[in-house]
């Protein structure tokens, strides 16, 4: 296996270790794109989007981006080194291509020349380094700091940027696709976090945080006519689910994200309405603090895992827009999804059995949860409490204020709710939330074998071996982990039927990988 | 005098008027068939105690009933118009224009939000009699005739900027605005001081005569009606008692009830022996100067009150009578001077007085309505002081309450659990007395206790107070502006004016000339039954 000629056998494996524009020019995206659809794509119109999130306290600092409004806006006005394609593959964006050393520790990215910012300047290697450095260092407050900290050194060599990592990481280009890391213009090695300038498809004309943004197409966009078909984009923050629906029904917006799942079946009946569900890696979980009794006893955890009615949750909480989870965070669409794992289902008798194994007839537990954890979280907990009763588990639901949930409840109380948008690769997901001592190991879970496998798999370049390792890790998390993952939730948006998109839809994030402003058009 | 009007046209005919009032969700008849015939320019006096239906009948003469009343039978014919059959709009067209009304309290009946002259011109302008500017100049003219001060400008004041007597005259002027054929005067001088009353009576009489307006003059004061009316009709509880011309009614009343009304003024307290030398007064007011803010309302006031004696404090409103009472009770600590009780100095603030000191001085208020907590039953109203000061409980307390009710001549079984709202005015005032007695005090302040009552009822109260004084050796301070009351109950009199004592001494001395000029004015202003009294007095004063 030659390190620089490696080609993945799996579809989405393609171009991880080495990526490049196949031919360049107009055919730039052909291999990964959707040629049929693009042929029909038409220029024009102003896309109006209603987003469920967006707060007056949002900022332009990429390290602070956390809600879909910021992320959506970021992808509309910025480009990244690497794009994740609709099929989950890596597509070179600001980086023209990359190459890794055999141990996957040293990565060389070549910066595309002639990529223009809205201000007219072109992207330099210095900009790239500055954009990444923004998230590093002692004073960094960036949310991307933990994932970028693997970089120990960055050097510039003409249009190349060489990254040296602490450990080998076969998935490093995926890391650079993270939404926190757009390529921004720099000055003296620093980016300006108050500027809206970027090298993406649309120019931000007007931005009022928490209210909305107006954008117009970036004339000098390097991708030319193949992308960014709208003349302009209007993004509105509409927090209230009913208000969002009403805006769509009354034609005041063309697209809304996060449709209220309670009534999505009713929305479907409205004329000219298209419901747009995307099942990706987003999953909802109920982490238990594995250090604290009774959750330190795996029998109790197993009892709870069998006392939850996953089918009912998908039906009721997701209104069918999603799939059941199997207590591990890897989605069915991912490369190494364990297809051999037995699916757990609601079985109060087995729950009782496990409870008896830990020497109990019944148990009283409390879950602290808020809808901030995920939409419908409180209802899900109520459903859980109803189904768990049959297994001898008396679960009291304590609703917490949404406000302050993440700092005061999550990872503070022993049994809570959580959600994960999912990560494009297994390693990122496991490293972030399941590795021993990880900042976001929300169940304070620690498993020796799992931790060994995690490090080994990260640098393993043999695909089969890697698959085997990830299968085992999923098995471990599912049977011994301390997080109940009852469901994978689809991203459900809705739009009117004048809006068109390619045949394939990205599943890594909502809103076509948050790149719909670049990929969609009016028919 | 009836003959004087015999050949004039009949203006108003009321026949068999019956009016019902709503109480306890049922309609009860409160006026049982009254007849009135009134000719142009004639003044009819309607007289009777409260509850007799005087005002109700007077208003009915306009075709008007108060909320909660209705005319159930009879006819009201005003100058050929059947007021009962007339539509509301037709009645409104008459009211204010051809029939006008002068209310008892001008201060309450003028709208506080509008200037006098705007209220004057409202009726003429709205009824289309004259334009706004014409009405205003007419107002000035009438104000002048009513002898109001500064007639050119007084109309541009708000009601609260004008004194009570002036307001009453302005209201009479307002009633005259459309030169009506008939005016209903509803006790127009009852709320006024005697000295002011005379001016108002004179003004009213002049203007009525000048415009030859017919009037119904409602009052409970015989002496007043004697000055104003050509004929008098006496009502009792909604029934007619009798009617005749003023002279014969005064000299020769036919019915017992009328005779008893006439007899009221005859009550007089027997002469008391002089105070023994060296006796300590129960209460001494010494060199008291007191007031609110920077203004002195009382200036160096001195007087004593002895056991079994009644001191009447007289004067116009604003003369400092009630302030004196507030100083004695400790509600208003004086700036200078002191109050002695049985020779001991009392703390000037009531909050610093001992419970026993509080018990020894009690007060009876003018308005029983506001002096009795409307939500408490008599048992508690009377029982509370006995319970508090004397520590009575349970049976003993009930027994004491019953005794007190007996003392004030109310049947204990019937009244002990009533609320104040279930009592008549006189009964309420008796409860006020019982409450004061319950404390077993030595001294009682009676603040205008009879001024809100009819004469017959007032007389009962005075007799009761007198009886109790003898029984319990009480000392009374009697605040009043009514000299008739003074004459009947006082042993000594203190006359106050502008915060100063202008005269004081034994009653007999005070009622004997020569008087101090102010006392003279007060005394001469008390109306007398003589129909010519007002004319003579005005004449005398005019000459003086």
């Amino acid at each position: 296996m030659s390190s620089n000629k490696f080609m993945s056998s799996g579809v989405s494996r393609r171009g991880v270790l080495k990526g490049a524009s196949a031919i360049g020019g107009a055919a730039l995206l052909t291999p990964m794109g959707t040629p049929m659809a693009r042929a029909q794509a038409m220029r024009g119109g102003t896309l109006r989007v209603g987003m469920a999130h967006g707060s007056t306290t949002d900022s332009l600092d990429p390290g602070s981006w956390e809600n879909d409004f910021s992320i959506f806006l970021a992808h509309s006005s910025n480009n990244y080194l690497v794009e994740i394609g609709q099929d989950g593959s890596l597509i070179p964006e600001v980086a023209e291509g990359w190459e890794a050393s055999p141990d996957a520790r040293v990565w060389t990215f070549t910066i595309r020349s002639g990529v223009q910012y809205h201000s007219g300047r072109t992207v330099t290697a210095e900009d790239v380094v500055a954009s990444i450095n923004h998230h590093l260092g002692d004073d960094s407050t960036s949310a991307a700091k933990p994932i970028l900290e693997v970089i120990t050194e960055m050097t510039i060599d003409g249009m190349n940027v060489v990254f040296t990592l602490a450990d080998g990481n076969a998935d490093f280009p995926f890391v650079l696709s993270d939404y926190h890391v757009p390529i921004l213009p720099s000055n003296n090695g620093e980016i300006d976090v108050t500027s809206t300038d970027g090298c993406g498809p649309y120019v931000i004309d007007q931005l009022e945080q928490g209210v909305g943004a107006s954008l117009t197409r970036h004339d000098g966009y390097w991708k030319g006519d193949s992308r960014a078909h709208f003349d302009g984009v209007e993004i509105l923050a509409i927090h209230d689910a009913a208000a969002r629906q009403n805006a769509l029904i009354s034609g005041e917006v063309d697209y809304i994200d996060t449709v209220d799942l309670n009534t999505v079946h009713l929305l479907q009946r409205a004329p000219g309405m298209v419901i747009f569900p995307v099942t990706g890696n987003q999953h909802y979980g109920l982490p238990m603090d594995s250090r604290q009794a009774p959750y330190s006893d795996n029998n109790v955890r197993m009892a709870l895992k069998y006392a939850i009615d996953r089918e009912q949750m998908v039906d009721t909480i997701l209104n069918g827009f999603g799939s059941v989870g199997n207590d591990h965070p890897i989605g069915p669409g991912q490369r190494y999804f364990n297809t051999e794992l037995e699916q757990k289902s609601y079985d109060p008798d087995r729950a009782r059995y496990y409870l008896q194994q830990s020497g109990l007839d019944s148990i009283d537990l409390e879950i602290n949860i808020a809808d901030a954890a995920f939409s419908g979280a409180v209802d899900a907990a109520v459903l859980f409490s109803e189904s768990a009763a049959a297994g001898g588990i008396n679960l009291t639901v304590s609703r917490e204020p949404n406000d302050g949930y993440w700092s005061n409840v999550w990872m503070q109380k022993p049994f809570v709710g959580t959600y994960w948008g999912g990560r494009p690769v297994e390693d990122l997901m496991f490293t972030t939330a399941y590795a021993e001592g990880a900042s976001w190991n929300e169940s304070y879970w620690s498993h020796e074998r799992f931790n060994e496998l995690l490090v080994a798999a990260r640098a393993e370049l043999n695909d089969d071996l890697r698959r085997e390792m990830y299968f085992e890790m999923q098995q471990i998390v599912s049977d011994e982990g301390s997080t109940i993952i009852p469901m994978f939730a689809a991203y459900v948006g809705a739009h009117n039927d004048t809006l068109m998109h390619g045949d394939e839809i990205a599943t890594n994030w909502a809103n076509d990988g948050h790149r719909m402003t670049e990929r969609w058009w009016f028919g | 005098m009836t003959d004087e009007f015999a050949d004039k046209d009949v203006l108003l005919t009321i026949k068999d008027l019956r009016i019902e009032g709503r109480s306890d969700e049922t309609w009860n008849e409160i006026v049982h068939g009254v007849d009135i015939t009134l000719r142009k320019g004639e003044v009819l006096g309607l007289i009777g105690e409260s509850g007799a239906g005087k005002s109700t009948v007077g208003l009915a003469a306009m075709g008007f009933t108060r909320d909660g009343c209705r005319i159930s039978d009879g006819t009201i014919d005003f100058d050929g118009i059947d007021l009962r059959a007339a539509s509301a709009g037709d009645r409104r067209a008459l009211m204010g224009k051809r029939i006008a009304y002068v209310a008892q309290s001008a201060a309450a009946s003028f709208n506080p939000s509008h200037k006098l002259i705007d209220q004057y011109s409202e009726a003429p302008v709205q009824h289309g009699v004259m334009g706004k500017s014409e009405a205003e100049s007419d107002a000035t003219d009438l104000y002048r005739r009513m002898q109001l001060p500064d007639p050119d400008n007084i109309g541009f004041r708000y009601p609260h900027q004008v004194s009570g007597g002036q307001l009453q005259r302005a209201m009479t002027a307002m009633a005259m605005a459309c030169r009506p054929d008939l005016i209903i005067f509803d006790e127009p001088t009852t709320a006024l001081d005697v000295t002011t009353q005379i001016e108002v009576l004179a003004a009213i009489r002049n203007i009525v005569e000048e415009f030859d307006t017919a009037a119904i003059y409602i009052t409970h004061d015989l002496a007043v009606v004697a000055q104003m009316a050509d004929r008098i009709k006496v009502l009792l509880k909604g029934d007619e008692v009798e009617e005749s011309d003023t002279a014969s009614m005064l000299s020769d009343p036919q019915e017992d009830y009328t005779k008893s009304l006439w007899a009221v003024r005859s009550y007089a307290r027997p002469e008391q022996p002089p105070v023994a030398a060296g006796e300590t007064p129960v209460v001494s007011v010494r060199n008291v100067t007191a007031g609110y803010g920077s203004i002195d309302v009382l200036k160096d006031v001195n007087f004593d009150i002895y056991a079994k004696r009644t001191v009447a404090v007289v004067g116009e409103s604003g003369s400092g009578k009630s302030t004196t009472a507030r100083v004695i009770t400790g509600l208003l600590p004086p700036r200078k001077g002191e109050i002695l009780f049985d020779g001991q100095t009392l703390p000037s603030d009531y909050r610093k007085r001992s419970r026993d000191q509080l018990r020894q001085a009690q007060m009876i208020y003018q308005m029983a309505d506001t002096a009795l907590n409307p939500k408490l039953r008599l048992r508690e109203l009377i029982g509370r002081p006995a319970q508090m000061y004397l520590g009575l409980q349970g049976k003993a307390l009930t027994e004491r309450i019953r005794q007190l009710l007996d003392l004030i001549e109310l049947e204990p079984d019937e009244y002990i659990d009533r609320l104040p709202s279930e009592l008549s005015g006189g009964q309420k005032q008796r409860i006020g007395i019982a409450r004061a007695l319950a404390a077993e005090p030595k001294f009682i302040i009676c603040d205008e206790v009879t001024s809100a009552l009819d004469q017959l009822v007032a007389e009962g109260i005075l007799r009761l107070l007198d009886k109790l004084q003898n029984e319990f050796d009480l000392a009374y301070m009697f605040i009043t502006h009514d000299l008739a009351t003074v004459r009947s109950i006082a042993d000594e009199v203190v006359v106050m004016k502008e915060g100063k004592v202008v005269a004081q001494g034994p009653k007999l001395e005070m009622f004997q000339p020569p008087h101090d000029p102010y006392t003279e004015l007060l005394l001469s202003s008390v109306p007398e039954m003589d129909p010519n009294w007002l004319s003579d007095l005005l004449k005398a004063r005019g000459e003086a």
Partner: protein
Amino acid sequence: MNIIMPLVWIAAVCAAAMAAGWIFRTVAVAVSPRAIAKALKSAPLTASFGMLMILIYIVGAFLAPAIAPFSETEIVGREFQPWDDVHLLGTDSLGRDMLSRLIYGARNTVGIAFATTIIAFAIGSITGLLAATVGGWMDQTLSRAVDVLMAIPALIFSLLLLSIFGTSVVTLILVIAIIDSTRVFRLARSVALNIVVMDYIEAAKLRGEGLWRLITREILPNATAPLVAEFGLRFCFVFLTISALSFLGLGIQPPTADWGSMVKENATLITFGDITPLLPAGAIALLTVSVNFVVDWQLHRASGLKD
């Protein structure tokens, strides 16, 4: 738009309500002791209707477990089932029986609202009467404190407090009660200011009565009419506050059924013409109107106006 039909409906509903009120009054007069019957006889039809409704709510609240076909929390079907024979009013967003939750909601909602209002009135009227009776520095201190509290918008204030102290039912009741009590304070104070100038208060003071007795026996009984009227409105506003708080994610703890939260939980349905969320909202509205009809009648009686 057809404007006739809704009007006909409104007229029909009004007529039916008045008829129910009339029947209730007739029956109530017949079965009550004489003194009460006399008072009841005077009740206008609106007040009779109000009393009937309040009675039904109270009965519903007390007998909820006996009346409700299902339990409050049990999931008995799919979510948002339409109305049918089993689930007369359908099911809610989790598949719980709507009718049962409405009935249990009476118990929880009315209970909580009642407790809240009682506490608010206890605090507000005592401090208000105290301020008016004692006057001086006491009045100044209390009034200024209330000014400050009222200057902070109620909803945001309760949001802050609930975020600080948590969202248990007890905290919820206390927080709403304290914020509400500032409004009661103002009313109680202004009413009492008119009473303390009465002669009977002066008489009681001169008698040497203590402050507590002065307030409870002499002033309070005379301030009840306006306070009761305010009680009627405040009582109903508690539902709305709870509903608004649940809109912000801070209402009653699930799975407890309460009308305010139920409106919020099902509110989006109205967008699609499904009237289910109107039921809890209607339950609140009906109670509000009923309570205020009765209060209006009592006020009218107390005012002594005779028309």
